[in-house]
């Protein structure tokens, strides 16, 4: 046991020394937040810490990891009784990357499943403009995380056109905190830098329990001319299909990004899910769902963001409900080596 620990310590010292030599530094970044919600008369509160560890090694290697640590606080009987909390800790990714060149990066370990754009790009609490993930986020992602290896990079790149890809194989794992489904899949995207428009297509085949195919299409558009972002996804699986589409507009265009009004960002999202057949534990709504949402984000100095939103949920098999949410997030970054901030 001592030998193992000494090996780990030697490895980390080696990593740090290497990082020093390359004029870079291991960093700890991520987000901290506090979220509250009221849904159908029940209140929930969630203090969250989402640390991201980044350890560059030499010129081509990287170790990176992100965790999600949160306490879910709710009333004992839903809408009545004393408040009680339950802790959830999730290791979202822990991977080693080898950056061979601009066309190929090889990743191994636990990684965010590349399906659509939400799971990989938008799920971080300091990025997502709504507190809740889209209801179709479970389609094609194998519970969000995969244990295995992945190839990704730019197939083609020019000033006006980029073709990017990610392809992976994931193994079955029942190890606690490293659960993963056996499957394979990937995503391919066409990005036009001139208009900041991207269109992607995703596919996943689960290689267990008889197999299941999931397909998806995503789009992202952020025109240079205005601080507008439009993003959306459509996904289909044996469980059902659905979509979400979101638009946000930062009012910095009117009075400047540092003004009181310019820090405000209204955002709207519409999502629908259509259930095809009941599948146990698929993390999708039990029936059809329609959910329009309206939110406001306010970007304070020092990487702090306030947000609030209202959603109306229309279910096909239960009572419709209102969902009110509020939250505060703080994005942090600091070096894990003395003098790294210089």
């Amino acid at each position, binding site marked *: 046991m001592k030998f193992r620990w000494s090996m780990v310590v030697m490895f980390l010292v080696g990593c740090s020394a290497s990082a020093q030599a*390359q004029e870079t530094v291991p960093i700890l970044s991520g987000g*901290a937040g506090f979220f509250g919600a009221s849904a159908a008369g029940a209140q929930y509160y969630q203090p969250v810490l989402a640390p991201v560890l980044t350890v560059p090694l030499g010129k081509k290697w990287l170790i990176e990891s992100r965790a999600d640590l949160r306490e879910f606080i709710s009333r004992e009987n839903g809408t009545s009784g004393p*408040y009680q909390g339950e802790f959830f800790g999730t290791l979202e990714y822990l991977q080693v*990357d080898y950056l061979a060149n601009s066309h190929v990066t090889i990743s191994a370990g636990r990684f965010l499943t590349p399906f659509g754009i939400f799971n990989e790009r938008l799920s971080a609490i300091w990025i997502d403009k709504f507190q809740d993930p889209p209801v179709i986020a479970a389609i094609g992602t194998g519970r969000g995380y995969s244990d295995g290896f992945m190839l990704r990079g730019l197939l083609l790149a020019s000033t006006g056109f980029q073709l990017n890809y990610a392809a992976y194989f994931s193994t079955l794992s029942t190890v606690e905190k490293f659960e993963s489904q056996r499957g394979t899949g990937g995503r391919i995207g066409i990005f036009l830098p001139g208009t900041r428009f991207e269109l992607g297509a995703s596919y996943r085949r689960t290689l267990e329990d008889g197999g299941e195919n999931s397909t998806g299409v995503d789009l992202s558009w952020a025109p240079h001319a205005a601080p507008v972002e439009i993003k959306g996804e459509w996904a289909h699986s044996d469980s059902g299909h659905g979509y979400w589409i979101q638009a946000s507009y930062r009012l910095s265009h009117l009075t400047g990004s540092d003004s009181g009004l310019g820090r405000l960002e209204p955002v709207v999202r519409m999502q629908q899910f259509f259930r095809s057949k009941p599948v146990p534990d698929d993390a999708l709504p039990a029936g059809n769902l329609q959910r329009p949402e309206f939110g406001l984000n306010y970007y304070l100095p020092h990487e702090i963001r306030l947000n609030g939103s209202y959603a109306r949920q229309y279910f096909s098999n239960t009572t419709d409900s209102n969902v009110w949410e509020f939250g505060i997030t*703080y994005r942090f970054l600091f070096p894990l080596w003395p003098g790294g*901030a210089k």
Partner: protein
Amino acid sequence: MSRLRTALAAVLCLLVFSPFALSPKAQTKRAPSNASEGERRFRTNCGRCHQAPEAISPREARAVLRQMRVRAMLSAEDEKLILEYLAP
């Protein structure tokens, strides 16, 4: 209820007393005139999902960009130019 108060207090303390919220780090100022292409690449690639960090040192920026090269599929040229913009 006491756990809720404790959790609230912990998050507020983290936000209010964080050294990053109170004291500016020793950072270098950006020079957009020298890094306009880097700024353009940042806005084109990174700015689609998040804003630029308010302050970041060159050594931190190298680590962040190594990670973003993997996550955002940046080219080696993008990485170099954005680094010049974030931490000239």
